[in-house]
């Protein structure tokens, strides 16, 4: 689980001004807010890639802030992150990309690594892609590899920065179904930043709204939508309250399903 307390961060001007956030174990929390409200910065601070000027970040009870690199590296082994611009290592193949964190963290004996890689690829609907080069993949495929890489070491905490940005509606639905599937399968805690509010709210347990560098409210969707704070109401004005959650379970084979006539694969 993730606990963020009174985190301040500025790059010349203040970006985060006292953020409090709590993500319970095994929950999927969506982090939303207007552009440039500091969502990515917050995610990076939780991942230990940035140091806040003040505040504390605890992952699974262990403090993240103020560590030296060795301790931080150990803690980062518990965290998986999928980046907004995907950040796959382009000099490695898909399989090597996935194997890389396993090897670095010595999480598995060498013999088992390939098995885990194949299993993880299959779970995101990219079975058989181990030898493919990163350059040739489509945007959606790259994102799925990124998500597979984040999850491959079975980290208890997963951070996703705009996992569905720039994807078409079909891929977006599948992406969110994949997130739910991961939550169930890996029993991880997920913190997801997304601008696709409608889809996001269908899968989240809780929502946190970040505005102007502070989390204005956090809670189940219903209570957030009922918030009286003007910025929150403004931001969520156009959100349709989703019907009873009707997200179908994620089917990896659906990625290879025959396309309806007239459709094309991205």
């Amino acid at each position, binding site marked *: 689980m993730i606990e963020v*307390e*009174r985190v*301040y961060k*500025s*790059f010349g001007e*203040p*970006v985060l*001004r*006292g953020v*409090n956030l709590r993500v319970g174990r095994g929950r999927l929390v969506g982090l939303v807010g207007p552009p*440039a409200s500091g*969502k990515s*910065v917050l995610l*990076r601070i939780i*991942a230990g*890639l*940035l*140091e*806040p*000027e*003040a*505040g*504390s970040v605890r992952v699974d*009870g*262990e*403090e993240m*802030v*103020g*560590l*030296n*690199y*060795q*301790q*931080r*590296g*150990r803690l*980062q*082994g518990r965290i*998986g*992150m999928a*980046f*907004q*611009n*995907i*950040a*796959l*290592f*382009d000099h490695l193949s898909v399989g090597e990309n996935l194997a*890389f*964190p396993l090897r*670095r*963290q010595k999480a598995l004996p060498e013999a088992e690594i390939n098995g885990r890689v194949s299993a993880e690829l299959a779970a995101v609907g990219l079975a058989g892609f181990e030898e493919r080069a990163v350059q040739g993949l489509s945007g959606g495929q790259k994102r799925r590899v990124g998500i597979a*890489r984040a999850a491959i070491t079975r980290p208890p905490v997963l951070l996703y920065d705009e996992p569905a940005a720039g994807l078409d509606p079909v891929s977006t639905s599948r992406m969110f179904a994949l997130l739910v599937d991961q939550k169930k399968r890996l029993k991880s805690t997920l913190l997801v930043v997304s601008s696709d509010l409608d889809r996001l709210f269908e899968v989240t347990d809780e929502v946190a709204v970040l505005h102007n560098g*502070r*989390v*204005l*409210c*956090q809670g189940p969707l219903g209570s957030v939508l009922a918030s*009286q*704070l003007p910025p929150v109401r403004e931001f969520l004005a156009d959100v349709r309250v989703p019907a009873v959650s009707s997200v179908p379970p994620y089917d990896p084979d659906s990625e290879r399903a025959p396309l309806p006539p007239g459709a094309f694969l991205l």
Partner: protein
Amino acid sequence: MASDDPPGPQSAAPKQKGLKGTAQSTKPVRVSEKPTRKSDRSALMTNEFAGASLSPSAETLSISQPVPGFVLPADEARGGPLKTLLAAVYAIPRIEPGAIAEQMHLLGFRSLGFVCLVLGFVGGILVYQAGIQALRIVPDTSTIGPAYIEILVRDLAASLTALMLATRVGAGIAAEIGSMKVTDQLDALRLSNADPVVYLVAPRLVACVLVTPLLTIVGGAVALTTGALTGLWVFDINPVTFLDGRFVDGIDLGAGLVKSVAFGFAIPVMSAHAGLYTSGGSQGVGNATTRAVVGSSLAVIVLGFLIGALAETLSAGAGQ
């Protein structure tokens, strides 16, 4: 989108001063003097949204102590190239096997042709120009060779090789590391428990330090050959007369070697530094490459000047 932040490579094993162990290492510190914007703090206190859950409460903030060690993992303490150098040196023991050899091949072997080409040309040009001018003063060609050899050993081979490496190797390192930075691959490395300094910077540093003197020697030999050939074809100087190393003394040799090693340090450090602190997309990568080439070249020139001046005062002192 949050602003781009200059990253820093993770440091090597630093000594912890005052931080104990692992968890719960921050001590809440009551601060009267805040590290950032006082105005923002007070704005926060007064500008509360009524009813906001989890509103920030009182004055006590837990301030993280600055992480000891050379380079923080991300943006703090934007260091100069010196910091990058130290971090890379400390990272050396943890380099993966084979990484150095790989870099030596990429940086050294692949630059061989380029260096030989340039040094070959310069050798010929230099002998030609110097010869023409010298003949106006002293119509004696016997000292052209030895003087040329002295200049070559003392300075020219090392400096010119290094300048060429600065453009080829320096730009390459900055471009690679820089584009990895702007596509977040460096962060992805950190999260996979791979320190970019260990994985990317240190192997290149060691490889460059080893390769630069070697390339200098090879390039010097090529320049020597073309110089001798030019002497022969243009001025009819007997190669035996030309290839006379009598002006070269220990200080000259020492200066040349020290220079090439120093340049071998300077180029990858300046270039990796430029790459690590890239920001701003593809334009940023281009800027990083420029900074690498210019920074490396300037470092080479300044270091060359300093070492040369030192050598000169030494030899003057030794009564040469």
